């Protein structure tokens, strides 16, 4: 009988205790796995989200977040200058503001954006047709997100009145927009209402005079040329416009990782450590109790010629079986728990709905397996020591007297 089979039979002998151990590890393991997914989840998710948009560089007037700092003035010249750089494939200027959309007596405050996109678009058209700054049909056109379409029962072809609130104290007459389509915006929050128009229509709705407001952008989204890559493109931007703040997706993620996401990393580290500690304690206690109940049997096996190493390895195998089985059950449990927690956290204000807190990554699984291996070993140390140091003769005597 192999040591593994022997340990398995030993565990099955006390099914209640074995199930308790496996259930305990399944619960703590699920939490541990979730914490490992959380520790890198936001970073991985942010990387995926930024990459999914199709732009790998963002340019603002200063290091400040868009809307909290000044806009880029002289937008047309800037776009032309940057688009002419060999390392850059496309530049999409964006304006950000707020607006009130009215239809049939119903009204909603929305995030209002303006963008001139040629090839790539920082949104995905779901229904209807896209807006295009090259087509001036006279009537301003608009894309709305699904939330807004649902709230105001909008479909492509609908007409709405939009009152822009793009600058402080702005007071402009309402503009009538035709809804051309429904789109998904990757950085929308769960309940965010969003509408987007071309820059020309955005300026019209915001009442921007060409001399001041129309030729500005809050953000330039840039796609580097595949052969050159974002780093070379950013260097090129900095060389021609050192006054602008250009960051690659990689730099942006690193910045988030150092500041905003570090709290989650710390929380996940603390919770993972506590969780692992509890799992370790549970298995140590179960193995120790089981070992102490079998001292006579162990002494007899030692007397029959079973070596110290063999008996200690039996304890280690029992630990491996309990932790291994519990750890395997923990994976689907952890994934289910992560899905539920993600759904809860995504409703938090200020969090893009497409951002995931718990992301499965091979690294998380590797670390999880490594931590389980540590748990198996550390939990078995004390009972293994008890077995290895067991005095055979006096234990047999005690068992007979007892």
């Amino acid at each position: 009988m192999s040591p593994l089979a022997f340990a398995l039979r030993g565990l099955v002998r006390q099914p209640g205790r074995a199930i308790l151990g496996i259930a305990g590890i399944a619960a703590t393991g699920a939490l541990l796995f979730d914490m490992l997914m959380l520790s890198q989840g936001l970073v991985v998710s942010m990387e995926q989200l930024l990459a999914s948009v199709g732009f790998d560089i963002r340019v603002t007037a200063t290091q400040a977040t868009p809307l909290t700092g000044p806009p880029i003035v002289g937008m047309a010249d800037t776009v032309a200058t940057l688009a002419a750089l060999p390392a850059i494939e496309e530049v999409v200027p964006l304006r950000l503001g707020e607006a009130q959309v009215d239809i049939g007596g119903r009204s909603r405050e929305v995030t209002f954006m303006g963008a001139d996109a040629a090839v790539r678009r920082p949104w995905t058209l779901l229904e209807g047709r896209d807006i295009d700054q090259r087509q001036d049909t006279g009537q301003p056109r608009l894309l709305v997100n699904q939330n807004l379409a649902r709230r105001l029962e909008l479909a492509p072809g609908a007409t709405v009145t939009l009152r822009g609130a793009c600058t402080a104290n702005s007071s402009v007459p309402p503009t009538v927009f035709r809804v051309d389509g429904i789109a998904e915006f990757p950085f929308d929050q769960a309940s965010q209402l969003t509408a987007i128009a071309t820059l020309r229509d955005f300026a019209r709705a915001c009442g921007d005079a060409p001399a001041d407001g129309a030729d500005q952008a809050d953000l330039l989204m840039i796609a580097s040329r595949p052969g050159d890559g974002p780093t070379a493109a950013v260097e090129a931007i900095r060389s021609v416009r050192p006054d602008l703040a250009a960051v690659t997706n990689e730099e942006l993620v690193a910045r988030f990782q150092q500041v905003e996401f570090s709290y989650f990393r710390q929380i996940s580290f603390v919770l993972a450590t506590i969780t692992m500690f509890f799992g370790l304690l549970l298995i140590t206690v179960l193995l120790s109790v089981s070992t102490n109940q079998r001292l006579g049997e162990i002494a007899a096996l030692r007397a029959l010629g079973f070596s110290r190493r063999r008996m200690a390895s039996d304890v280690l195998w029992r630990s491996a079986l309990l932790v291994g089985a519990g750890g395997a059950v923990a994976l689907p449990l952890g994934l289910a728990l992560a899905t539920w927690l993600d759904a809860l956290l995504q409703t938090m204000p200020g969090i893009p709905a497409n951002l995931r807190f718990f992301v499965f990554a091979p690294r998380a699984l590797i670390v999880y397996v490594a931590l389980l291996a540590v748990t198996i070993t550390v939990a078995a140390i004390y009972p293994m020591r008890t077995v290895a140091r067991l005095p055979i003769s006096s234990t047999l005597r005690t068992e007979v007297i007892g």
Partner: protein
Amino acid sequence: MRPATGVGAFPIVEAREITRVFPMPAGPVTAVHGVSLRINPAEYVAIWGPSGCGKSTLLHILGCVDIPSSGSLLFENRDVGALPDADRSDMRLRKIGFVFQRFFLLPMLTAWENVELPQAEARIARDERRSRTAELLAYVGLAHRAHHRPSQLSGGEMQRVAIARALANRPVLLLADEPTGELDRATGEQIAELFDRVQRDGTAVVIVTHDQAIASRAGRTLVMRDGRIEREGTAG
């Protein structure tokens, strides 16, 4: 002290002036005091004496599970005290069989598996294990109970399985510590007959007992008192 000797010139075990002292809170207790003896091949020795006289301690030393505080023990001419624990374990596995008063069968294994276990530990090939296990269970009269667990066996049957387990790796020495202590007289008699048979088949047997009837079956009886061999007698 003159060694208690058997007839053979080459003993399996030879104890030379062995003493075993246990440190206790109330002061050291000497369980075995200056004992010398030899166990020869195929010899049947009973160690008899009242409870607490050091019989089991002596048996454990002879079986290499304990080491004397002083004196020396030679097993097949090897100084047991000089051997590392792993070598002593291997010696017990391959050369010595143990039978305990409380059987100590593994409850989660069947009779067959209990007998097969020491053979697997000794890395005996599977086919050989199977034939040896079948042979041993038939030898102790339990072939029909091979797939029963200890909880499904009577006390006498459990002790028979324990004897089969002890013989699994063809030991040269079988040690039994009060093997009939948990059994009624009739069943104890059957177990004693089984030990007689084991000895007749060529294995040296040392039985520790406080039952004079069991001790009288041995070819040689060592009477112990207060950790010493008080006298030695022979059957008949």
